């Protein structure tokens, strides 16, 4: 029990993160003793479930890991399979995969920026409360998000758990007219996403700069979605096949999810801030213009400012979607032929919330012998704890209620997709 000088805050679950998890901070005599951001993952359920299934089932099975970023799971799985089988997917099929990813980024980023994260900065308990005073922002968010959903529905076959993606391409490729039907809405979305950048850049941010090691894909010619080497701000530059040589997943007693770290170094940061820092030169000119207009620096190390970077990436996704549609010619076949061979394949793509790594070992009959899936939120887990500790130390005198809010906001900076990895998020501040 608490003594009279002790304050304890317990929150049953933390709203506005995608899924559920838990957090506990322990403060003794005004000093931060421990910070735990816990994820209760149904342990490796999907990795076990995949064993014995055919390679061709991986995109549909892994898409079910997350209702928010199914495309990311599909993309990492198909790229891994194609690497194992020596299959190249190029031309318009490759462009369509990028377009599908644009849809997911728009949908996911808009949901997070406007409906989950903006209420923190504007002082509202939720988007519902925010809607009463900022109706136009919420209506804009719903329309933008819907446009992202439309792209996903058109290419994915349906909005939730898309089913049109296969190893080698798609089951069905859209016609030119199908894609043209998206153009008017995307043109509106380009203006609306520029507004997002202006609006988010006008928010007030807590002062904090963190010494992150940023990790993301880096492709020679493109802002990263599907392909590229894995690079970091500390000089890492590896092929996706080298993932397990450089990164380590380890069990931590308090959490079902595996914690990731760079071997011999420690925590790292994946997601919009990392992609932006490592690939700003490859952003679409529309996104560069939007970033420059609000004076965004080349590297952003204040995690609270991720809301601006997420908005800049939304501009990128909308602008690139329009470019892809403009250049689209329906391919002769919706997929390239695939013949499974025994081997190992790796896939790393950029989910909205960061790098998503898959590794599969396939038997000669095309069955999956082993699967490894490393979601972005698990990779950010240690970094989130470090941010929580820093924010807590800077605000230790703050009253419980605003402190709790600030800590929740700190977790939301990462747009954590805990449903990829967990259940309830309980927040507990122990000042005993």
């Amino acid at each position, binding site marked *: 029990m608490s003594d009279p000088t002790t304050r304890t805050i317990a929150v049953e679950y933390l709203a506005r993160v*995608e*899924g*559920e998890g838990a957090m506990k901070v322990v403060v003794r005599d005004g000093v931060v003793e421990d910070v735990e951001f816990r994820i209760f993952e*149904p342990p490796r*359920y999907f990795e076990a*479930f995949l064993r014995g299934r055919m390679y061709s089932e991986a995109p549909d099975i892994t898409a*079910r890991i997350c*209702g*928010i970023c199914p495309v990311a799971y599909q993309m990492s799985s198909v790229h891994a399979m194609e690497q194992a089988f020596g299959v190249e997917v190029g031309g318009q099929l490759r462009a369509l995969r990028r377009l599908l990813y644009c849809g997911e980024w728009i949908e996911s980023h808009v*949901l*997070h920026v406007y*409906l*989950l994260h903006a209420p923190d900065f504007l002082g509202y308990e*939720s*988007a*519902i*409360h925010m*809607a*009463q005073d900022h*109706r136009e922002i*919420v*209506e804009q968010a*719903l*329309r933008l*998000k*819907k446009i992202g*959903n439309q792209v996903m529905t058109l290419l994915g076959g349906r*909005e*939730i758990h898309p089913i049109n993606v296969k190893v080698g391409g798609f089951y069905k490729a859209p016609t030119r007219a199908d894609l043209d039907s998206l153009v008017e809405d995307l043109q509106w979305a380009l203006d609306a996403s520029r507004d997002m950048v202006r609006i988010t850049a006008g928010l007030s941010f807590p002062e904090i700069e963190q010494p992150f090691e940023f990790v993301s894909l880096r492709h020679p010619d493109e802002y990263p979605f599907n392909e590229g080497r894995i690079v970091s701000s500390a000089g890492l530059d590896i092929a996706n096949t080298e993932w397990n040589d450089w990164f380590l997943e380890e069990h931590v007693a308090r959490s079902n999810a595996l914690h990731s770290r760079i071997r011999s170094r420690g925590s790292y940061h994946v997601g919009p801030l990392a992609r932006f820092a490592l690939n700003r030169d490859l952003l679409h000119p529309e996104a560069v213009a939007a970033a420059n207009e609000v004076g965004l620096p080349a590297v952003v190390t204040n995690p609270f400012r991720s809301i601006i970077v997420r908005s800049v990436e939304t501009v990128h996704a909308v602008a690139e979607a329009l470019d892809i549609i403009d250049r689209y010619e329906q391919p002769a076949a919706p997929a390239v032929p695939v013949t499974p061979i025994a081997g190992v394949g790796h896939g790393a793509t950029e989910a909205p919330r960061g790098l998503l790594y898959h590794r599969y070992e396939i038997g000669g009959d095309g069955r999956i012998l082993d699967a490894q899936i490393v979601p972005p939120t698990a990779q950010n887990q240690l970094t989130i704890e470090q941010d929580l500790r820093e924010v807590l130390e800077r605000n230790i005198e703050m009253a419980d209620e605003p402190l709790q809010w600030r800590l929740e906001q700190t977790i939301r900076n990462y747009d954590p997709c805990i*449903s990829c990895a967990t*259940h309830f998020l309980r927040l507990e501040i122990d000042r005993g």
Partner: protein
Amino acid sequence: MADPVVLGIGNRDRGDDAVGLLVLDELAARGLPGVDLMAGDGDPGWMLDAWEGRPCAVVVDAMVTGAAPGTVVSFDASSTALPSDARLSSSHALGAATSVELARALGRLPKRLFVIGVEAGSVALGSSLSPAVATAVGLAADAAMEVLADA
């Protein structure tokens, strides 16, 4: 005027979270002429679009309130906010309860809106349906038909 709609919400891979979809299956099997049935995840954009221009909507979802699993409750959400302790369980970003209240804040509720919640037991990934919730599917379908009869 457009037909009433029943929105079934859930995830078939998460145990009792499937109940909203199972109630839709049950209503489809019973046959309801003049009523549209739609499955989804509770996303606000989807829900607001689904009931736009319709006189009546019924939302069916799993719920976590601490009641016994399989308990079925029906709210008239047209004029009263959903009780905050009745958290419709969603493993997605914004669940059905948030979507309903967001629609209310935006003035985009249908004229008549009913929410039928079925208390969930386990919503763990890969778990099976609880027997009590399996039994409740028919009761929730009855409750939906009752409100639709007056629509």
